[in-house]
């Protein structure tokens, strides 16, 4: 109860604001249309007109809700119009990409805290790699993979891994360097090997950073997949859905896909939050 209430209240506030914004943003078009038709609108009629447009600047909440409902519950989940179907395609590539990215990020971080050569040579290039606009090279990546005969989930997952490895890398490098002097000295006085100092000290003390990074990374992985879905021939997945909605000006379809994607991200983030709580509790860190 005490967990649901605040969410509901805030949600209610947002919905109210949203309706207000929808009226304000959609009104010019409604007024225009009326003016062209030569039938002036009363305020009531105007507000009603802003709620039902087919291509609103900002769709009203209930329009999006209906779009979502149609997309999720209104179709067989194997239908091409089902958001569940598209969501699943996106989710599978996201999870694959996230797994690859998180592992790669963590592995690079390990290498960086242990080797000065790696620290000096990798870090600047890892940063540079993230500034390459993926949407620009994604088509080339897809083309290169396709010419090597690799299509489907893998190229998308690579792009999502590309985006998600960086937050993990940065967070883990920080986390692995968090143990203080005395703790490292202790390890040192026991002549612990690097591996031992890593698993027994650096890794546990990096966990708060790790989880914060993983949350960011999983959201980034989803964005990566969606971006990867555009040049993959815009056939399936939430990204394709977004794009085709955008291309055909179907505002409500865009918003539904958008919410489905954000919902997916929120679920993934919440899942990691859950794992975080369980892990920290089992380690005695959550008091």
């Amino acid at each position, binding site marked *: 109860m005490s967990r649901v209430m605040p969410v509901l209240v805030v949600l209610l506030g947002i919905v109210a604001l949203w309706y207000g914004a929808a009226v304000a943003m959609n009104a010019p078009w409604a007024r225009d249309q009326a003016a062209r038709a030569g039938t002036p609108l009363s305020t009531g009629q105007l507000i009603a007109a802003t709620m039902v447009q087919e291509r609103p600047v900002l769709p009203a909440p209930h329009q999006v809700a209906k779009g979502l409902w149609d997309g999720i519950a209104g179709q067989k989940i194997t239908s091409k119009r089902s958001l569940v179907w598209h969501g699943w395609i996106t989710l599978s590539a996201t999870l694959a990409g996230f797994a690859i990215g998180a592992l790669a990020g963590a592995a690079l971080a390990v290498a960086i805290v242990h080797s000065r050569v790696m620290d000096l040579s990798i870090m600047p290039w890892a940063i540079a790699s*993230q500034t390459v606009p993926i949407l620009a090279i994604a088509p080339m990546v897809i083309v290169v993979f396709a010419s090597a005969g690799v299509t489907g989930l893998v190229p998308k997952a690579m792009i999502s891994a590309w985006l998600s490895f960086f937050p993990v890398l940065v967070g883990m490098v*920080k986390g692995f360097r968090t143990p203080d002097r005395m703790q490292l000295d202790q390890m040192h006085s026991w002549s612990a090997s690097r591996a031992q100092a890593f698993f027994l000290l650096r890794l546990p003390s990096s966990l708060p950073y790790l989880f914060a990074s993983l949350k960011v990374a999983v959201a980034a992985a989803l964005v990566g997949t969606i971006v990867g879905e555009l040049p993959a021939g815009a056939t399936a997945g939430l990204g394709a859905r977004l794009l085709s909605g955008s291309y055909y000006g179907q505002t409500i379809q865009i918003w539904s896909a958008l919410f489905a994607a954000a919902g997916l991200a929120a679920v993934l983030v919440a899942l990691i939050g859950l794992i975080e709580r369980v892990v920290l509790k089992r380690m005695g860190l959550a008091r």
Partner: protein
Amino acid sequence: MTRYGEGGARPGALILGLAVLVLVLAANRWWPGSGLLLFVWLAGWAVNSRLAHYEGPISAMLVPLIFGATLLASWEIACASFAIPPVILPAPSAIGAAFAANLPLLWGDFVQTILKGALSGWLIGAALAVAVAVLIDRSPFLQRGLLPIGNFVAALPIVGIAPILVMWFGFDWQSKAAVVVIMVFFPILVNMVAGLKATDALARDQIATWSASYAQALVKLRLPSAMPFLFNGLKITTTLALIGAIVAEFFGSPTRGMGFRISTSVGQLNLALVWAEILVAALAGTAFYGIVALIEKRVTFWHPSQRG
């Protein structure tokens, strides 16, 4: 400060050299061009392992440069020896030529996209995220109410919001900044919330005995101890901000900007210019990250990770 346990092993250099030579020749036989590639890599790595033993700013500059040179050399070699068509991947030399030939154009795009779009969006997004993190931290009600919804809103994928924001904020840099705000908000928020929770118990008790007001505890204790986390978020988002600003231009823009140039040049198959823009993005991103990292070093000098 003393360091311990460093000093690399020095195996028999001659044997190693011979082994490398054999490996290189064998590889080249089996796959022409790959031998040279392998050689470049091994040589670069060998030089770097040596250099890394010298502490100080010079080796810290040289090592990444040599690594980068190795990368570029192998790219050039690969383009030449595997006959990669330039409409798929141009060689670094061609990219360099395009870069040098288009400096004024690249500068104009840089100003439009990075300075106007990315930077302003990043600043606004970061300020918003910090403010919301503090709000959330202040009120358990908001924490339960806003954080899940915040997660949700902030996870909206860029390709979905960009067209909407272009529709709302127009074609110029304002809509790009808006995209950047939304993109950088979440990572900074998550890190900042974690940072505000990370103060140690003793310090919290102390400040309680002084009966500090909420604002005082925030300013004097919690914000400083959240700084390492905040900078974590700020660093991650420097690159996100660039991506956001560039990609948003794909969805509508005036006839300048890095994203505009990239998408237009792809259509013209002027891939060298595309990569020259990517080069600008990489340089700008690295500099941006570097500046934030430098500020971090100054602000969180006390954190074990900075004390070395």
